[in-house]
């Protein structure tokens, strides 16, 4: 296939020991997690849990020790991520910081920003939100209008962001804002900049939006003359689009793009023993899971080598979303509602609802397939 590479990667030699440590920790920590907590997993939020994870050195694992990082390999980090997800752990309070905000600050932030933010992310104390979508800018992200205007000592923000997961619980968001407006709509990718915005700054109001399952997952954020000091601009003024799209490779590359509903299969498997159609259906799911895992590891390996696998990540996310959305539907076909234990029923119900978000968040199915099509040479 032109230009798309998925080289097989091994998990690191440290993996078995690391897994044993994580499984022991997660078995203990997860004793009381409800089916709903597991169903939301990386979309959920549990500060206490994130602090515990931080204490064990499982946040910022690959980052420089100078900022509290673990200086371990990307593949070791991958092992930690997939163990967390397989257990349905509520990792949302540190997930975004670990996955993209931290790496962004380390890559493009000032020394002051690194010292200020990185150690607290590592400790599981600083939760990040992603301020991208706006009411009129979803898939067409570059059309965003929330603007930051120069004022003495910094910037003044006005506008609105929406669908920002867990913003009402987070400490900071990385917001992509318009810092200079171009009269030409074809130049909309220019004049954007990224800022670290304190979610509790004066002038910010955050309105939680109930999701279809009744959870306060995402939000609408209104910026009304919010002041952000110069010191919280991230990277280069005007280079926000390039910075944010590079960040998307991280956002799309992880195992959360195919593993979100796996805890349901684990939980339901023993209730399928008497179902004649179960072996074939489970076998098909596992064949896909194993293959997606190899593809996901291939992408992780490229990230480790400093390659930005934006297109490969788009493909794995799209294929992974299909899998994690199909899984609850397949299990629904197999589970006998009368004999299925309540906890499994609940998780199935929650996954059935939550799964819709998988192919929306982090780039819709249609946008991802458009990226793949362009890679194929279709215009």
């Amino acid at each position, binding site marked *: *296939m032109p230009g*798309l590479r*998925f080289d*097989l990667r*091994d*998990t690191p030699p440290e*993996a*078995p020991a690391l*897994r044993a440590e994580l*499984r022991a920790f997660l078995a203990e920590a997860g004793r009381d997690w409800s089916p709903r907590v597991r169903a939301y997993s990386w979309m959920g939020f549990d500060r206490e849990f994130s602090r515990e994870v931080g204490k064990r050195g499982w946040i910022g694992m690959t980052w420089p020790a100078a900022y509290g990082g673990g200086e371990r390999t990307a593949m070791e980090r991958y092992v930690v991520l*997939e163990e967390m997800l*397989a257990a349905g752990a509520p990792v949302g309070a540190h997930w975004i910081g670990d996955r993209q905000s931290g790496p962004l600050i380390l890559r493009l932030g000032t020394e002051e920003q690194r010292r200020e933010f990185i150690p607290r992310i590592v400790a599981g104390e600083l939760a990040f939100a992603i301020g991208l979508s706006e009411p009129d800018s979803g898939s067409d992200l570059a059309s965003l209008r929330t603007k930051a205007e120069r004022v003495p000592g910094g910037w003044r923000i006005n506008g609105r962001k929406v669908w920002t997961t867990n913003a009402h619980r987070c400490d900071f968001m990385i917001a992509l804002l318009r810092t200079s407006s171009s009269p030409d709509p074809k130049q909309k990718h220019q004049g954007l900049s990224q800022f670290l915005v304190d979610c509790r700054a004066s002038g910010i109001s955050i309105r939680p939006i109930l999701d279809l399952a009744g959870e306060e997952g995402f939000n609408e954020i209104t910026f009304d003359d919010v002041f952000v000091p110069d010191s919280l601009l991230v990277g280069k003024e005007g280079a926000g689009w390039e910075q944010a799209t590079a960040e998307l490779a991280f956002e799309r590359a992880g195992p959360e793009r195919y593993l979100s509903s*796996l805890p349901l*299969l*684990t*939980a*339901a*498997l*023993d209730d*399928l*023993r008497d179902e004649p159609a*179960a*072996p*074939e*259906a*489970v*076998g*098909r799911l*596992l*064949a*896909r*899971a*194993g*293959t*997606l*895992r*190899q*593809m996901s590891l*291939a992408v992780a390996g490229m990230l480790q080598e400093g390659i930005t696998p934006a297109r490969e990540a788009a*493909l794995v996310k*799209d*294929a992974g979303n299909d899998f994690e959305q199909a899984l609850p539907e397949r299990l629904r076909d197999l589970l006998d509602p009368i004999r299925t234990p309540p906890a499994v029923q609940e998780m199935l119900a929650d996954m059935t609802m939550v799964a819709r978000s998988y192919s929306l968040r982090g780039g819709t199915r*249609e946008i*991802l*397939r*458009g990226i*793949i*099509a362009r*890679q*194929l*040479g*279709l*215009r």
Partner: protein
Amino acid sequence: MAGDADEGLRGILIEQVDRLLSDAAGPAVLRAAERGEWPEALWAEAEALGLPLALAPEAMGGAGLGWEDAVAVWQVLGRHGAPLPLAHGMAAAALLGLADIEPPAGFIALALPNEPVAWGRRAGHVAAVDGAGQVALHDGAGVEWRRSEGAISREPADRAASFGAPLRTGRLPGAEAARNAGALLHAALIAGALEAALDMAVDYANTRKQFGRPIGAFQAVQQQLAVCASEAAAAAVAAAAAGRAADRRGLDDAGFEIGSAKVVAGEAAGTGAAIAHQVFAAIGFTDDHPLHLFTRRMWSWRDACGAERVWARRIGEAALARGGDALWPDLTARNEGRGNA
């Protein structure tokens, strides 16, 4: 345990095979093969490169290549529609080697239980495997063949009415080894053929114009081809991972990965071939157009050595027997050297 060539050597090998097939294969050769014409010139070139015995141990005249290398070669072969039964011959030589039988030169046909034998009639020798892992090497001249007709692929195949007395017999390291080899080679061939069908469909979408622009400019077509690309990538990764598992744990213990590859490649064949035909529309439905030389083969190959449902059931039964608590630990342990099937 079979060795595996380093990346560089594998790259050279793939390049050689690709060059050979690019120069000497093509739709005319595929059509001739379907009429029963043995691709003599191609086979001679393949022999000159040492390919038929490449998987056999060096001590037996082979090159000691591993299964992951084999998958890479077979994928290239599939990309050209596999005009010669090289994958079968290579697998036969490897299995003979595993059973401690020195593979003879020339085309060795692979006879697996209940499976038609590709090009049996042209075999110098036949490696016949039973369901218990017993291998017998037969002189091709002594085998009484009956034509096996009706395959969608129209690739020449035969069934042995009788094998006659074997020249040598031996035992494979496990009862599953031969069937796994057969499934692996067909998964790899599908991965290659689907890549070819995808490339053809993308080229066509970029040139065929309707409503004043290339049909590939329409999102509806782009989205479908993206799915086809995704399936092709999944099939290729699954086959490569299966080859690697066979190298590391032996063919017999790589049932999960090989079965997964057969399931994923089989599903990809169905989805991908349908998309390619949809993109080509009527012209791709004609005998003249080469698309069906690839799609018909994929439809046959997905059924060979166990269709998706067969392998899925085996994988599923094993997982159900192990239980929910073992599901994730088993999946991760497989490539961390503490695996169980």
